[in-house]
């Protein structure tokens, strides 16, 4: 019984933890402009993150080594250091977006302008990192984030024309008005939103934090293989809501306040309250994960003592670097930069940086020195190579497409 509960908890947390501000914004924007014609990208992204997270979790559980230790060791200080610089900056960008997302969601709940919420949100994130146990932190935000299921409920309540939605999803067409370049630019953005590198840093370091062993692998595999795809279903539901309400009216999503309107239309104030709680939990959870990831990447590269399971005094530089990152994120947001715009950039750059983290993990997952007999099987390697190609193509195409489309505008 206890085992079943543990399994259920893990899966529910994975669903709730899957969505962050990047998924929310990108799916809604894409839904309002392209309907469900990019839903296939979510599928590709979800399979990719399952594969990648599963591999890095397996490496961490068996060898006890987290992702960035491996990157440093395999790529050496120069290539590894460049990788660190890129990953760290993108992580910081994502952290900024998430903290901004918390503030925007709190604005919806209170009408108090986001600039007043930003320092509060930053402080709250830090307090949780400073004082709360890892498992509590992960389970609470994950479970509360599960309330985002209201997007899926809203799709049914809106009573859409299902054949239109199915037609968009299964026979993707690019409207003449949007153009091929925009379509593919948003395809990469969606892919980057589903496969953000911080999820992998967090997942593998979390495995070390929670002291996973080989025994925990089947549980983690279930969490990933069931939880992430269900999280992907919620992503598509967000896009569907926007496709049903906004696409016919020619409305382009550019703010968080628009994303919640279809839910209110479908379910009234109650649904609205639930979705706001869900967005706060999802962005707050992701803000925790990205802050920790910035500490993890830096500490693992430098060989510092790290981990939430230690007292802050026993991982001093790790905690100091997270404090500095949060201060920077809050500082950037206080310049009145639009968090939604920051989010859009962060997901695209996530796609750009993905090969840098993916390749070393793939290599180590095949190294018997680390993995013993549990090296990747042929099937996993087959999939992994297909994804290596997809990831490299997306990474190379992202920036040219960004320039051609003027960042999708």
């Amino acid at each position, binding site marked *: 019984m206890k085992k079943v509960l543990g399994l259920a908890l893990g899966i529910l947390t994975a669903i709730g933890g899957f969505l962050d501000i990047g998924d929310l914004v990108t799916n809604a924007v894409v839904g309002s402009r392209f309907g469900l014609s990019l839903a296939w990208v979510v599928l590709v992204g979800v399979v990719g993150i399952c594969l990648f997270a599963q591999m890095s979790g397996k490496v961490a559980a068996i060898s006890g080594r987290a992702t960035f230790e491996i990157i440093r060791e395999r790529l050496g*200080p120069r290539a590894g250091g460049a990788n660190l610089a890129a990953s760290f900056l993108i992580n910081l960008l994502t952290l900024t977006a998430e903290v901004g997302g918390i503030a925007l969601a709190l604005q919806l709940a209170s009408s108090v302008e986001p600039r007043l919420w930003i320092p509060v949100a930053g402080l709250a994130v830090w307090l949780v990192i400073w004082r709360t146990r890892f498992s509590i932190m992960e389970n609470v935000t994950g479970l509360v984030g599960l309330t985002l299921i209201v997007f899926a409920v809203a799709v049914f309540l809106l009573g859409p024309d299902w054949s239109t939605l199915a037609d968009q999803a299964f026979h993707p067409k690019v409207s003449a008005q949007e153009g091929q370049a925009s379509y593919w630019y948003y395809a990469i953005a969606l892919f980057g939103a589903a496969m953000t590198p911080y999820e992998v840093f967090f997942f593998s370091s979390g495995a070390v934090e929670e002291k996973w062993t080989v025994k925990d692998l089947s549980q983690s595999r279930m969490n990933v293989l069931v939880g992430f795809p269900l999280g992907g279903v919620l992503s598509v539901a967000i896009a569907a809501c926007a496709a049903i309400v906004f696409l016919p009216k020619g409305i382009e999503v550019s703010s968080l306040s628009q994303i919640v309107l279809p839910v209110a239309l479908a379910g009234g104030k109650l649904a609205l309250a639930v979705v706001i709680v869900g967005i706060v939990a999802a962005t707050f959870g992701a803000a925790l994960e990205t802050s920790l990831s910035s500490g993890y990447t830096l500490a693992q590269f430098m060989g*510092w003592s790290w981990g939430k399971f230690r007292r802050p005094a026993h991982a001093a530089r790790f905690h100091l670097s997270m404090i500095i990152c949060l201060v920077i994120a809050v500082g950037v947001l206080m310049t009145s930069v639009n968090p939604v715009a920051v989010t859009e950039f962060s997901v695209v750059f996530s796609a750009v940086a993905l090969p840098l983290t993916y390749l070393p993990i793939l290599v180590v997952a095949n190294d018997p020195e680390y993995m013993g007999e549990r090296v990747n099987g042929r099937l996993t390697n087959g999939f992994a190579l297909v994804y290596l190609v997809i990831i490299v193509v997306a990474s190379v195409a992202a920036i040219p497409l960004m320039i051609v489309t003027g960042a999708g505008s």
Partner: protein
Amino acid sequence: MSDLPEDRRPAGRVLDARLHLLDRQILDVDGTPVCTVDDLEVHGLDGSDLPGGTQQAVITSLLSGAVLATRIFGGRPPASRWHRIRWTHVSDVGTTLRLGVRSEELDVTWQERWVRDHVIRRIPGGSHDPG
């Protein structure tokens, strides 16, 4: 993989520096991360560095700190800025290097101690287990 003759099989374990030593995590006797192997110091047994078959050369210390910056950007730090961990302290070489001493007792962790004493311990809750 090549037509070259096989080297004689050595008596001890073979360690290729880049593959097995450099950039690996160093853990202390309690399993606390200390630093990474940023470079290695090698000396001849008679103290000179000359090759030429007259004498053996061995690794005397693991280095960390400023040598990382020079491995990335080039150049060579002055010897005064090398932080050494004597090979004497190494107890095991695997996917990590284990030491037989505690992290506290080593020179290389001075920054960690400085940040701990001047910043982290001064913030309330910094010395307690997460609740």
